[in-house]
């Protein structure tokens, strides 16, 4: 009982809080995981839209999901070859 009492005074780590924090974190990350088909479809749609205005190099473009500690970003990189003239 005394050792139990002693433990109360020393700062004991609470595994329940750990579990909750780790869960909240992993659930957010699970949801940010994008599967390959979604990425490929998205890339095609972006290319279609951009191609209306620019001629782009479809061989050297890249689409990535970048993750940092706080933010996630979608990065689309493409060289522009020409600006298309808008048809009247």
């Amino acid at each position, binding site marked *: 009982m005394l050792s139990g009492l002693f433990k109360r005074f020393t700062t004991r780590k609470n595994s*329940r809080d750990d579990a*909750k924090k*780790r*869960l909240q974190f992993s*659930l957010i990350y699970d949801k940010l995981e994008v599967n390959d088909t979604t990425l490929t479809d998205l890339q095609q749609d972006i290319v279609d839209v951009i191609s209306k205005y620019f001629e782009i190099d479809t061989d050297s473009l890249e689409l990535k999901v970048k993750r940092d500690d706080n933010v996630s970003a979608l990065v689309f990189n493409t060289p522009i070859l020409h600006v298309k003239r808008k048809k009247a």
Partner: protein
Amino acid sequence: MEGKIIVVTSGKGGVGKTTATSSIGAALALEGNRVAIVDMDIGLRNLDVVMGLENRIVFNIVDVVQDRCKVEQAAIRDRRIENLFLIPASQSDNKDVLTTAGVERVARQLRSKFDFIIMDSPAGIERGFENSVVAADEALVVCTPDVSAVRDADRVIGLLYAKSLNPKLIVNRIEPARVVRGEMLSHEDVLEVLSIDLVGLVPMDEKVLISSNTGTPLVLQNDSKAGMAFRQIARRLNGEEELPIEMPVYKTSMWHKISKTFGLKQ
């Protein structure tokens, strides 16, 4: 009469899905409903032994879907609880023998014959899960207060939302003493993480294993805390939505109260 199909699912195995299904089904029958429990875990059937009906199987759900027999022929009547029926899974088939179209067709027949149809989904999120949820009107997600079960529950909840189902949560095997000691997630923690509606809290109960040992319904044992919790859940599903959810409490000892007073425990 148009019955309601409720799917019980969890993602992770071993969290008490089968116990929840059989107990809620039995309790709904005790409330006066005509209930069919359907074991959708093709190839790994278990509801029959848990319910003590393993010796009476003639046909199974695969036979019904493949039109080898009628629903009435496959439904085993429970002799202890009136209006409770089990449609067992097949033990020899592969779980890919069922199609969602086949399940939907049988679901229509089941709805016309029963007030409640409880589908026990297999663990996982593959074909068996798809077959279990395809015809569901409501979904229950069972989870235990541990990180892997909660994470899998979150995944399943997402899949159910995508199917326009609005699942409700059962937190199973809560050990209040461990929650107080800071060793276990509380149901509030789980709810906060999953942000979903709660339908019941079930405490850890040694009676669950004992009742499955003998194949007797847990809900018939008045001294079973888990059994009573499942009966409450069934009443909520049966229309008594306002029935308050009881919190599993930790009976505090004298020593605990003293140390609490001195600020030694939270």
